[in-house]
């Protein structure tokens, strides 16, 4: 009797559990499948990782409204911090847009990536050169030029150097031209008889080109110096040697003003120290320069790229971001409106 009962209960539970399993299985099949959502954008074969099951209308809504796609950016290491700050904000608001930024130097970006049609934007710390324009034209890459911010190219010396705190453009040229002065005393007689230790930008850098054009001109750039793309390396070199001199973008000096001493540059109207104010007012000459970004016109035809470009231009007047976080001079309202006009025209042309 007892035995029978046991068998009975076991049978019952087995049946019960089978039924429960079947029910659960049916529920699972009904409720826990999802259909292929239309994968928007041109990003390729990515699977949408929308974990929320069901509610098709919701996911469709979001995929219609949200921008999606990828944006490839390369170019100047000087503009890199500014571009990544703007991209960070944009990526936060538009999670479906994938932005990648490479710091390749202005020239490297144009030659290897932008003018062969691999990137959507190229950052540059100087205007595009003629041979780069030709290369772009050869590959049918059209572009527009947008001003991103203003930088004060900063010449730095060691903190223990108390003699060379003010220099004329002519003296700077003597130090950096291809037939460069060997000793500090060659530049100015009262300066010490010590060798000049030079740290500067590599020749793929826009900073290098700008420095030649505005300081040395025809005389070219010396090859007797430590060339690097890394501001950090220049700073370490200069802070490690009492008779060293170097130059780089303003951002590094702005963030670490105690590490090095900036040289006040005299362009004929008395020495001017680099600062956000002197660069914005145009007093700091000839070393305050515009920074650029070049969007390709065909990329602007895509809505997510156009929207990013608009966002970038709108952020160029954001003082907290441009001056506070990165250390460049924000654009004026007027410049911003001009740039926005250029951009809107290009977008209209590309999309229309």
């Amino acid at each position, binding site marked *: 009797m007892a035995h029978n009962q046991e068998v009975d209960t076991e049978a019952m539970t087995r049946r019960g559990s089978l039924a429960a399993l079947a029910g659960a299985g049916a529920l699972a099949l009904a409720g826990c*499948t999802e259909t292929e959502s239309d994968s928007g954008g041109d990003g390729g*074969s990515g699977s949408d*990782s929308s974990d929320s*099951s069901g509610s098709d209308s919701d996911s469709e809504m979001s995929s219609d409204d949200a921008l999606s796609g990828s944006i490839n950016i390369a170019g100047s290491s000087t503009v890199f911090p500014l571009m990544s700050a703007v991209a960070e904000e944009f*990526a936060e608001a538009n999670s479906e847009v994938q932005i990648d930024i490479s710091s390749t130097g202005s020239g490297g970006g144009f030659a290897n990536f932008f003018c062969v049609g691999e990137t959507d934007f190229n950052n540059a710390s100087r205007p595009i050169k003629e041979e780069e324009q030709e290369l772009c034209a050869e590959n049918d890459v059209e572009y527009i030029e947008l001003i991103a911010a203003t930088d004060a190219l900063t010449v730095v010396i060691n903190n223990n150097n108390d003699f060379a705190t003010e220099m004329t453009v002519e003296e700077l040229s003597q130090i950096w031209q291809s037939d460069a002065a060997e000793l500090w005393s060659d530049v100015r007689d009262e300066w010490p008889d010590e060798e000049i230790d030079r740290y500067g930008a590599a020749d793929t850098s826009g900073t290098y080109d700008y420095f030649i054009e505005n300081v040395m001109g025809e005389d070219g750039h010396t090859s007797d110096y430590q060339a690097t793309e890394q501001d950090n390396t220049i700073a370490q070199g200069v802070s490690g040697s009492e008779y060293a001199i170097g130059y780089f973008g303003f951002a590094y000096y702005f963030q*670490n003003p105690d590490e090095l001493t900036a040289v006040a540059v005299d362009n004929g109207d008395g020495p001017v120290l680099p600062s956000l104010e002197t660069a914005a007012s145009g007093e700091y000459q000839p070393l305050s320069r515009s920074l650029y970004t070049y969007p390709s016109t065909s990329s602007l035809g895509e809505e997510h790229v156009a929207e990013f470009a608009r966002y970038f231009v709108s952020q160029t007047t954001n003082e907290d971001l441009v001056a506070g976080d990165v250390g460049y001079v924000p654009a004026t309202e007027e410049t911003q409106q001009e740039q926005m006009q250029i951009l809107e025209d290009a977008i209209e042309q590309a999309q229309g």
Partner: protein
Amino acid sequence: MATDNTATTAFGEVSRVRGIVFEYLSFGASVFGIFALAVLLIYVTIDAFDLANANPLWLLTYFITLVVPFLGFCLYSARDPAVTRRALVAAGGGLVAIAAVFTAIEAFVGQIPRLNWPLAYLFVVIIPLTGYLTYVGAQGRAGSVGFGLIGRLLGGTAIGLAFTVLFLVFDARLWFLVYTLGVVPAVLAYGYGRIRSVPTAQTAAVPVAIGGLFVAVFLRPVVDTYPTTVFIYLWTLAVPVAVAGGFVVNARGSRTAALAAAGGPLAVATGVGLLGQPLGLGVGGPNALLVVAVAGVPTAVYLHRVADVGEGVTGLGLPVLLVAGALAGALLVESFGLPAPDPWLNGSFVTEAPSRNAREAGLYPAIVGSVIIIAMVAALSFVLGVATSVFLEEYTADSGIVGALTRMVQINIANLAAIPSVVYGLLGLAVFANLIGFGFGTAVTASLTLSLLILPITIISAQEAIRSVPDDLRRGSDAMGATRWQTTKNVVLPEAFPGILTGTILALGRAIGETAPLIMIGAATTVFSAPTSLFSRFSAMPMQIYAWADFPQAEFRYGVVAAGVITLLIILIGMNGTAILLRNRAEGEN
């Protein structure tokens, strides 16, 4: 007497000075490298965890609640009074010595930046002592059980996380189809053939799998409805892991135990995966299911084995001891209001995107990029490297035209190993990115380039391993009538496997830290979201770390870069640890 005298004069005296000098020179050379590396790593660690700002009381609290119990456990496991005495002398003597040396240096030489005596004591005495005692403790039964358990928990979690990362770019739905139509039928056919001894069913397994793969690829664009990701993971990964665990336990013990060991973790994993988020546990979803299942099943199987053997059961308390110690430490720190250091390497660093603010900066997209690239490199270089070396060692002729050709290939491979990595970057740019069109800076281009880069190292080390298999074994196999393929498969490769893995470990370590070829193929410096396909632009950890090293803010150069370096090291060590475990297991089987 006379004979004695003549003997000494005839033998003369041999100067031992040269020998002693040589011994100490070689000792000095080995110490110099290790010492420089240790100083570097100590500073990177101090920066990454902000230990320079750690309150000595904070350090002391965790030392007492976490480190001391752990050392006690190791000593208990070792049960050797001599070791205990040595450890106490080292800890006590080291304390006095370090404090004295430090005070002397600070008094006479000057302040050592970012280092104080508690930290020096921690790095110079406590960490080596912990390492030594861990090693000694692991020899004891309780220790080996405890470390085995922790190893399975951590290793399972790491493998589960690695899977979730791979599924970011590999299509889970395609995998679902491949698994259902290819893997399951093939395994069923093979199992059926094994149990019923039907050889045709066994040989049919491979064609079935390949057929299933093709059907799956064909069906993927056609089929429109799939289970949700949770169910795909459950069906294709958690259930097989549980079934395998169940089989292992079943072979050793009872059917009930097998059911418990497999079903228990599976049920927990399913529960967490499905109900975790609705119930507000803070974790849940497909990834949690995967991690719990992959970590839980091996742990359960291990628990069963320990209980079955019945030795060293006390070792199972080790995880409890560590968790309780950490909690107690946190409680004490909280209640006494001790200021805690603010580490750069924390949870948000590994889960967030890069940022312009040092405090918010994270490495997540680069970690994902590196893990995906390295997984593909491992698979590619292992297959290509082993295939090449087997062919060169076992199949080609040694003489004649073929022999000359083989020697030429050999010389070229040896020379390729010495080519700078930038050249491989150029090759990758020209061939994979431009000619074949895999795209600039995509994961496919990156992993193919890096595979080529480490291929010579893999081939050479695999060749050495194959060459070191005694020829007697091959001849013995030949004498039994085995074909060359059978000899290679059954004798040579199993014998050479540990050596092959050693070479692969070294090569992969090089690949994960490579930057130059990545720059050449146009890999991105910074990306803000994890990649979604193999053809999207990638960043890798060394690229991002290099970019941070150039940021103007000092927080980036000292804090964030250090955190990135430590993360890279942890992933590298995890990867190598897996390979070393595999190798040791293979060596054990031999």
